[in-house]
Every structure is written in C-alpha cells, then in structure tokens.
C-alpha cells in the first residue's frame, strides 16, 4: 500500500466531521471516494493533501508515518491534489505554473530553459500536443488547464494524485480524454484518489470505491462487487428507487418561441418552449448550450432572428418578460456570497419591476411564494425547502444544495413564466439533488416552462419531457421523451444526422 490511513478523526469548532476513517490505496490503483456533501470527503482529501491536520489517527506513505503541517510537506512526500477550481495563474506561462514555488535555479538564477524542457517532456508523455510550455494559461481551455495541473503534479514526482470532481467542468470528449489521462497515470504506478458525484465515472474508472457517510467509513469495495443502486443506498442510507419525479401531464401553450435565432456563437436556432414542460438541452462542452441559455436570457443576446414574447437585448428585458436563468456557476454568477439569504432571495425583485404585476412589497415577494413582508421571505424559503430556512444567514455558509435553493428562491420572487436551469445540480449532493428535481417538476406542473441544461445524461433524460441536442452552436436535433444515452451522444458528437 502506498497510502495507509488508520482511525483518522477531525473536528471543526467542536463538530466532528470525520470519525476514525481507514483508507488504503495501492500504487497504480484508481480509488474512488464517494459520499453526499458533508460526508467528509473533502476533509479527508484535505488531510491527505496536508491542508488540515487530523486530530486523531495515523497516516503512512510507503510504510513511513507522515504528518503534514502544510500542503507543501504533502507535495514533497508525493501527494498532489487537483481541486475543482484550478490553482493556476492565468497571466503566467504553463511552465511557470508547473514549477511555481519550485523554480529550478542555476547559479542562483531561474533556469527557464530547464523548466520549459521538463514541462514539454511531461506534456509529451501525456500525449498533449495542443499547447506548449510557453503558452499563457489564460489562453487554455478548462480541459487543457486540467492537463497543466496534472503535469504540475507529475513534475513534483507525485505518487498519489487526488482529483476533486475532475469532470465537473468537462463534457463529452473531454471526459474521454481525462479517462485516457487517468489510465496513463495508472500505468506509471501512480495512485489516483478520485472524488466524484457521478457514479458512472466511478464504475468506468475506479478499481475500488470507498463510501463515506456522515464522516464515517461505510464500506470499501471493488467496483466489480457493488452495483450503482447499492452504492447510492450506501451513500444516502436509503434506496432512492426512482431517481426522478414522474413526468407531467403534457405541455400547454407556447411560452417562448425562437425562429432563426443567432449571434456570434449560435446560428439558426428554432425553438418552442411550452408551459408545463421540461425541455432538456444536451450537447458537449462548447456546443453552445450555455450560450443558448444566455441568449434567451438576454445576457449574451441574439443578434439575429425573432423571438416571442420578445427578443431580449438585456437581462432586465428578459426578466421583465418573465424569463429567469439559474446559472451554471452558482458562486461566480448566482449569489452574492457575503450577503444574507434574504438579500439574495430578494435581489431580483428589488432590481426589476415586472410589468402588469404587483410591485413586490418593501420586504417581501409576492407571486408563487405568496405574501409579503418577513413572512413572505420565510414562506418562500420553506417553499424551496431551504434547511434551515433562516433568512439572516450569509449564503457562503450554506451547502451547495442549499445555495442552489436560494438561487431558485431568487427567481420565484418575480414569478417567471420561463425558467432556464444551467447545470442545476452541479456540486450538489444526492439528497439535495432529488429535492431540486422535485422542485423543478413542481414548478412545471404549476405551469412554468422550464429549460434544463445538464452534462449528466441520466439526469437530463430522467427529467426532460423532450430533449434537444446542441452541436456547433446549432440545434442538431430533437429526441422524444426518454431517449437512450447513446442516441443523445450520437447526435451530440455528430455521428448521425436525423
């Protein structure tokens, strides 16, 4: 075993988040760690990476007991961690990023050529030819930046690489590339600790899987010895059975209609969105899914084509016309993290007055949530099942799922007719995911028109009444309810044209 952890325990401010966890990882093993948010995965990984020190328990690397007081000590012991949000400097070159903090020196001066040569060699070993060591990181795609992170880990002679939700920002072919990369790491005898919410990846990639729940180890098993349903049961302690709420009774009138919509990225978009339906939008990363959402929402408006009820030229026009967008990146685009739940929930209502509707009260928000004043907000928070429904809390202290519910509450204050969800359950644990799915279906059943973008095909297929697929900024086709994942992927990758 390259890594052996025994009885790891950790408390924060008196709250115990890990209870005596054991973990063994072998060289060349891909070991998945799964669990709901709050199960203790991140804390465990941060202990391995030297960000936190455990309160109790022992850790050995190659049979040598270690204890880390700083991430750099863990790096020197051969542990590297790749966070969801990359730790890269956009203004610096690839090589400078790879050797940050460990720049090779010759006669006291930085040896730039050695640095670039070593980086180039590692890039080549990983089969990465699309960029070189001198490229500024700001010009790289997310997938390319991930390669830089892996190169950085390899340049540190890492023998254990922790990957925290590495596919969260990737899709389609990029995920395939990552799979190939992980395979190469395995060939080099590197142990990969792989954290993911996506069970499919766990089964595709991992040799073994460790399930954590409420800070305790539930089980470690070979991926051949468990099935996905069992894994979910182990994670949440209950059988979710059907993953998704039942579909609606059928769509109503057209709420939103686009003909020939286009801009710098999109072209020839023809789309109808009806009351009561959930329209799924599939497509690879970069196919224009998010751009479509932003165009409908007026954030990156259409410059061509027609749209009813109107073609919004700005976010405010879209909101006034009853269109809302739950953005892909909650923290960067959805919430003012240091403000209260209440201030976030009321932000849209305080910014845009919808024509033909009651102006919201000073404190409150009418509409579906009903009422105004303090009770209005509390009622709203209960309606989106925020736990606990405390309006005074700063949202940065909430879990990902609860934060997403606040974003939802924000839109419900203005009772939009159309709500667009871009990756609504990214970084959300299994329990909160189901709650969000329920809420979405509930809104549709109440007559809202919903468009949902998701990279997770099971979610997309399970939730949608209809699926359209984007490719190269165009709609590549539409699929009936409940298509196979294969059918969606074929259309998205352009192998079949209907």
């Amino acid at each position: 075993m390259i890594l052996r952890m025994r009885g790891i325990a950790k408390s924060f401010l008196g709250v115990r988040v890990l209870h005596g966890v054991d973990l063994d990882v072998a060289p060349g093993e891909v070991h998945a760690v799964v669990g709901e948010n709050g199960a203790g995965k991140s804390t465990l990984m941060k202990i391995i990476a030297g960000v936190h020190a455990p309160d109790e328990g022992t850790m050995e690397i190659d049979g040598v007991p270690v204890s880390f007081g700083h991430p750099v000590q863990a790096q020197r012991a051969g542990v590297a961690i790749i966070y969801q949000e990359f730790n890269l400097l956009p203004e610096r070159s690839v090589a400078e990023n790879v050797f940050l903090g460990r720049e090779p020196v010759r006669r006291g001066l930085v040896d730039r050529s050695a640095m670039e040569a070593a980086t180039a060699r590692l890039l080549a070993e990983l089969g990465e030819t699309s960029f070189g060591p001198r490229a500024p990181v700001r010009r790289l795609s997310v997938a390319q930046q991930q390669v830089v992170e892996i190169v950085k880990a390899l340049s540190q002679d890492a023998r254990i690489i922790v990957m925290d939700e590495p596919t969260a920002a990737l899709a389609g072919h990029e995920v395939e590339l990552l799979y190939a990369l992980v395979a190469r790491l395995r060939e080099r005898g590197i142990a990969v600790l792989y954290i993911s919410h996506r069970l499919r990846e766990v089964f595709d990639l991992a040799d073994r899987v460790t399930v954590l729940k409420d800070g305790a180890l539930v089980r470690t098993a070979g991926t051949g010895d468990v099935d996905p349903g069992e894994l979910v049961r182990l994670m949440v302690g209950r059988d979710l059975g059907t993953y998704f709420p039942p579909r609606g009774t059928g769509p109503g009138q057209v709420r939103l209609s686009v003909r020939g919509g286009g801009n710098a990225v999109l072209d020839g978009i023809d789309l109808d969105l009806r009351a009561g339906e959930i329209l799924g939008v599939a497509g690879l990363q970069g196919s224009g899914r998010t751009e479509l959402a932003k165009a409908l929402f007026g954030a990156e408006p259409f410059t061509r084509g027609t749209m009813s009820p109107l073609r919004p030229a700005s976010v405010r026009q879209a909101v006034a016309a009853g269109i809302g967008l739950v953005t892909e990146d909650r923290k960067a685009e959805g919430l003012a993290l240091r403000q209260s739940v209440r201030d976030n929930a009321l932000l849209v209502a305080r910014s845009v007055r919808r024509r033909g509707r009651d102006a919201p009260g000073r404190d409150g928000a009418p509409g579906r949530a009903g009422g105004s004043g303090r009770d209005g907000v509390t009622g709203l928070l209960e309606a989106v099942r925020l736990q606990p429904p405390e309006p005074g809390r700063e949202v940065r202290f909430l879990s990902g799922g609860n934060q997403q519910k606040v974003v939802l509450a924000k839109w419900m204050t203005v009772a939009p007719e159309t709500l667009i969800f871009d990756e609504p359950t990214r970084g959300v644990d299994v329990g909160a995911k189901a709650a969000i799915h329920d809420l979405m279906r509930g809104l549709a059943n109440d007559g809202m028109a919903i468009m949902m973008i998701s990279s997770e095909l099971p979610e997309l297929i399970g939730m949608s009444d209809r699926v359209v697929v984007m490719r190269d900024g165009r709609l590549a086709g539409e699929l009936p309810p409940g298509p196979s994942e294969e059918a969606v992927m074929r259309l998205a990758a352009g192998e079949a044209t209907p």
Partner: protein
Amino acid sequence: MRALRTLGPIVVVLAVLLALIAAANPFFLEPAGFLAFLKRAAPLVILAAGQYFVIVSGEFDLSVGSLVTVQVVVAARLIDGDEAATWPVLALLVAIGLLIGLANGVITTALRVPSFITTLGMMLVLSGAVFLWTGGAPRGALSEAFRTFGRKDLGPVPWSVLILLAAGGAAIALMRSDFGRRLVAAGDNERAASLSGVRVNRTRTLAFVLSGLAAAVAGILLGGFAGVSAQVGQGLEFQAITAVVLGGVALGGGRGSVAAAMAGAFTLEALFTLLNLYGISGALEFAVQGVIIIAAVAAGAVRLPLRRTAHV
C-alpha cells in the same frame, strides 16, 4: 447591545474615546460642549457616508478632498462677499459635486478604469483646474449667509448638526432601500448582481454621485467653519477612507454598514479631539493617528478571521 451587533466593535472604541475626552474636559458632557464636537465632526462624517457608498460598491473615491477645496475656492470667488449670490452659488456647488461624481462613475464603469486611477486623475484635474482659474491662490470671500451653515446655530443647535442628522438619516434610509441592497450586492458579486437584473454600472455611478454630493455638502460646511484656503480639503479623502475602514467596512466592497462608517468618522474626530486635549497637538498628532489607525484595523482583522479561512 443591538448597536454593538450592527455597528461592530467601533462603537466600543468610540465610547472609550468619548469617555476619555469627558474625563479630561467635563464641558464635553454639557450639551453645548457635545454639540460643538458634533459640529466639528459633521463634515468628515458626511464625507465618510459618501465614501462608504463608493467603498461598499467595491471602489475608491480619492477625489473628494480636492473636490472640497474646489467647492470652497469656487464659492469664495463667485460670491466675493455678495450676499445675494449665496443661493445661486450653493446650487452651483451642489451641481458641481453631482457632476464630478457622475464623471467619476461613468469613467470608472463605462470605460472600466480602476476607480483608484479615475479619482486620482480627477484629483489632479480638479486641483489644477481650480487654481488655473483663480490664478494660483484663493480669491474673494464668502458671504455671511454661506457661513451660516458651517458656523451658526438654529436656536441651541448648530446648523451643521442638523444637516448632519439629515444626511446621516438619509444615508441609513438609502442603505435600507432597494438601492442600498443592490449596491452592496454589486460590491459583493458584480456578475451575480448583473445576472439578477441589477444595473451594476448605473448603481455604482450613483454611489460616486452620492460621494460627490457628500463632498459638496462637506465643502459648504467646511467653508463656513474653517474659512477659505487652498488647503481646506487636503488629505480629506484619506481621512474619509480611514474613517470608513475604521468602521469595519471592507475595502473591496460588499461588507459593512453606513452607520458603522459614520461611527468610524466620529471615532477619528474624537481621536483628534483627545490628542488636542492631552496636549499631543500639532506634529505628533499625525504619528499617534497613524499608530491608532493601524492598530484598530489590525484588531478588527484579527477578530474576524472568517474571511481567510472560509476561502480554503
């Protein structure tokens, strides 16, 4: 207790300073003595309130000091002792303040120049322009009516204290309004605010306009109180920013209350008063001021470690 929660530790510091002043000078406890303190503090408190709007939205306004100088110098030259000119000139001063704030805001938001640079440039332009116009030194004189605001009383209460109360009340009301909440949200997360329908540029520009207005009012009070000089506004921008930060408002935006910012200004003024009382006047006053500012902000930073750790 409630004040402690909304205003933060600054009220404790302020209370201690006020107690020390009272101990050295019992006159301070009498209405007249306390009102005199408020009167002296009024311009800085109003400036701090204006600066707060800008800072909480994530920006700086370094131009307020030179704007105050411009107000006083322009007033003196245009009024030149003529009582009848008072009101038109007052209106003009307010207009100048609003206009300069508007320019700062538009340049910062529409041209995306960091506000530090915008308002630094504005500072150079304003001080250059006003002395270009007057030929290098202030000229003319203020009217009696103009001086009333900074110097005279209405019954037992100084005019400036009444103006201060009105301005402070308005600032607090504004921050409780939808505008105020949008402003803080824009300072916290500009992108999220804009995708929630907040007109971020307009909101921020309004913050600069409010700061310009505050500078105009402060200039009018200071002109009456301190008289006409080329140095009247010197360093006021830094004092105002210091006051806001003393009140626990984060540079960078999104955090802190306007009441605390004004309490910070009172604290700074109380500090000046105290240093005078204890005979640390003149030169060393600055040194002590520097130490206390660093100490107070450091204490605040140490007590609120959340910002750093929550980031990991």
